[in-house]
């Protein structure tokens, strides 16, 4: 393989990495704002599955992509509403609640998905998600093809990541949200409605996870298959740590993990024999390494929200 075709192959790989990273990006952004509110929702995998199946089912019925995506977001939000009610209102254990949500979501997706196996996304929906080149930006050599020659949901994910970054770090509401996740008692004393913030961000986070799931079933695959997420929800949970609860970093992190996801496929061409199982482990190995490094550094800025996983009760003494 000469240099030019190698470069073209690398660009192809990176383009695919961005696409593979998109469901991860949605889920990671969703989990990031959830955890920023101080609630650890381990139900990402379940919510993605709920979004995937609801999006697919409504895409089939309505043949309208907007209805399909809305249904996906609503379904996953409904899942996160259960979690929010359990952990915010009833102050139940967040880990257990999240895990149940994952199992519940997988069950629902399996149940509804029984009749969907083998079905494909209607053409009217598919047509919406064809790659569109962005004028000017799409013409930049290299980067243009990798980043700006994609479907509309990928562009939306860019805007979401940047928008959430601005929200979190440059707006009052974002500041309040960070305060709630770090020290709910301080936020409460400052007049912030702690429970409201938690509910809003858990629900919005759930909606984003649902969108990530729908991206898989409607765009990425695009057909229904059993257990369509294949552990991506868990990768997203790890990614949140990897990107230190930062939406900007999530953008890069998701594409990096997307690249790891499809690495095996693209290595085949080079006659390198690596087991797919090893490749599948890579995202988790990277996460463990990141955990090791951040714990050694003890950086306060990259630490998880301080009150993550701790229920808040105002009159607690």
């Amino acid at each position, binding site marked *: 393989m000469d240099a030019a075709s190698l470069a073209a192959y690398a660009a192809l790989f990176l383009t695919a990495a961005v696409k593979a990273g998109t469901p991860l990006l949605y889920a990671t952004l969703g989990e990031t704002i959830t955890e920023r509110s101080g609630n650890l929702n381990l139900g990402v995998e379940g919510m993605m599955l709920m979004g995937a199946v609801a999006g697919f089912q409504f895409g089939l019925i309505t043949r309208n992509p907007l209805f399909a995506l809305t249904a996906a977001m609503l379904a996953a939000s409904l899942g996160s509403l259960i979690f929010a009610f359990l952990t915010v209102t009833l102050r139940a254990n967040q880990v257990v609640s999240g895990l149940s949500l994952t199992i519940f979501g997988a069950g629902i997706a399996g149940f509804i998905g029984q009749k969907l196996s083998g079905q494909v996304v209607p053409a009217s929906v598919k047509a919406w998600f064809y790659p569109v080149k962005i004028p000017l930006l799409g013409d930049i050599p290299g980067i243009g093809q990798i980043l700006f020659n994609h479907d509309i949901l990928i562009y939306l994910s860019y805007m979401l990541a940047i928008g959430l970054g601005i929200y979190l770090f*440059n*707006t*009052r*509401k974002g*500041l*309040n949200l*960070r*305060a709630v996740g*770090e*020290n709910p*008692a*301080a*936020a*409460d*004393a*400052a*007049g*912030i*409605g702690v429970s409201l913030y938690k509910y809003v961000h858990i629900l919005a986070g759930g909606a984003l996870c649902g969108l990530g799931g729908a991206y898989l079933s409607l765009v990425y695959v695009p057909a229904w298959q059993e257990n369509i997420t294949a552990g991506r929800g868990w990768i997203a949970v790890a990614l949140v740590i990897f990107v230190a609860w930062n939406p900007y970093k999530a953008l890069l992190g998701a594409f990096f993990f997307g690249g790891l996801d499809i690495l095996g496929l693209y290595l085949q061409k080079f006659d390198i024999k690596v087991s797919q199982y090893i490749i599948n482990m890579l995202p988790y190995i990277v996460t463990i390494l990141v955990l090791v490094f951040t714990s050694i550094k*003890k950086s*306060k*800025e990259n*630490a998880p929200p*301080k009150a993550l996983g701790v229920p808040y009760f*105002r*009159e607690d*003494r």
Partner: protein
Amino acid sequence: MNRQTYIQLQNITKSFGTVVANSKIDLSVHKGEIHALLGENGSGKSTLMNVLSGIYTPDSGSIIIDGREVCFKSPADSIAMGIGMVHQHFKLVEVLSAKENIIIGQKGNFFINQKRLSEQIGKLARKLGLDIDPDKKVYNMSVGEKQTVEILKVLYRGAEILILDEPTAVLTPQETQKLFDIMRKMREMGCAVIIITHKLNEVMEISDRITVLRKGEAVATLDKSATNINELTELMVGRPVDLSIKRLENQKKETILKVSNLTLVDDDNVKVLQNVSFDLSKGEILGVAGVAGSGQKELCEAIAGLYEVYSGDIRYEGESLVGKTPREIIKKGVSMSFIPEDRLGMGLVASMDIVDNLLLKDYQNHKGFLIDRKPLKEKAEQLVKRLDIKTPGVNHPVKQLSGGNIQKVLLGRELDSNPHLLITAYPVRGLDIGASYTIYDLLNEQKAKDVAILYIGEDLDVLMELCDRIMVLCNGEITGIVDAAKVTKEELGLMMAGVCLEKIKGGSSYA
């Protein structure tokens, strides 16, 4: 002066489970006055103020502000009425900067204008004579700085009613004076200031009127000019209290602890203790004075075997403690009770009851695989009786006790092991008079039993009255070891600020 009633609390009752924290309390505060809320530990001062700031919802009673009855569903409602509270345990977000902490929860433009915000805060700070860096992160701040942020946070909202919960407990005498200046300024501006405290001389210095609480009830409201310290104490405690600490004279006895050239470093290899040398003999109380964070905590931990010694030696009864495990050191009769700022961090497990907390240190002395709680339950009951610990029962989680009672449990457990050397840090931190004097008596009792005591304290008056000698630390170095009976408060203050004893006394006597 303007004497109109601004805040009126009527018949406030609040209980937690079976504990009645406030019972039918009436309180009225005027505009332009500093009102002190005085009371023993667990008398319900903080609870009452938490009701006023919307954190607790009262079971019954009404709150009237500026003639209008209000009902607070959350702190937001209270803030809207111009009430701002500086809590005893600061409610700040550590990873955020000063200015971010100041504006959280505030209404305003969707986006934050960083530059204008810094200017506004700088202006407000200058107006009040406060010094602050708006971009400094809270985790890099000293306690005094954190308090400044808390006060600015409240004033930035334009609060007209300022509540301060034990604000001076963590301040140096100079910082306290600065705080009082701010309070006076606020009074001139027509605000109502409520200060919760148990330090009587501060009450007499700063307040206009005083309301005394006892066991959840308001006992009396007095004009400062018409009362005195003795009357206030009696109202607070419910009986006359002798306010002098007796110092038991000690004859020079044999040395039990000898620390020589002790140097400790922290994780970043910064020296937290440098070349510290001193000795302590049986039946002596050696006080340690210094601004918070001068190396007191590290010194205690090094002796107790919890902090790695970088260089130097710690000799206990002639034997080096360096490299020994905490358990070995405890077995030798060294006991430590460290009261951290949050009181629960070290030594006790908050969710366990008194019996189990006693067990934590005692279980090693038992044989067999299973634990026998019966003897410890008796011991716990004795402890409750002897130290007058207020608790619904010995099987009640300690975190639900009030701060002073938690401290009594901790100190009581340490004394129970009959130590030869007792290290006690801030044992009266945040305590009221009655409880403090119980603790001083306990320490003197130990002293009479020939126990050597290393006492890390905050209140210079107490250090001077209780201790035999006082060692002053500044930035991890000893700036002087003096005879407590001969030193003055000003000299101690200078040494705390880093001026060596030799410079003060011209190189004369080391006590």
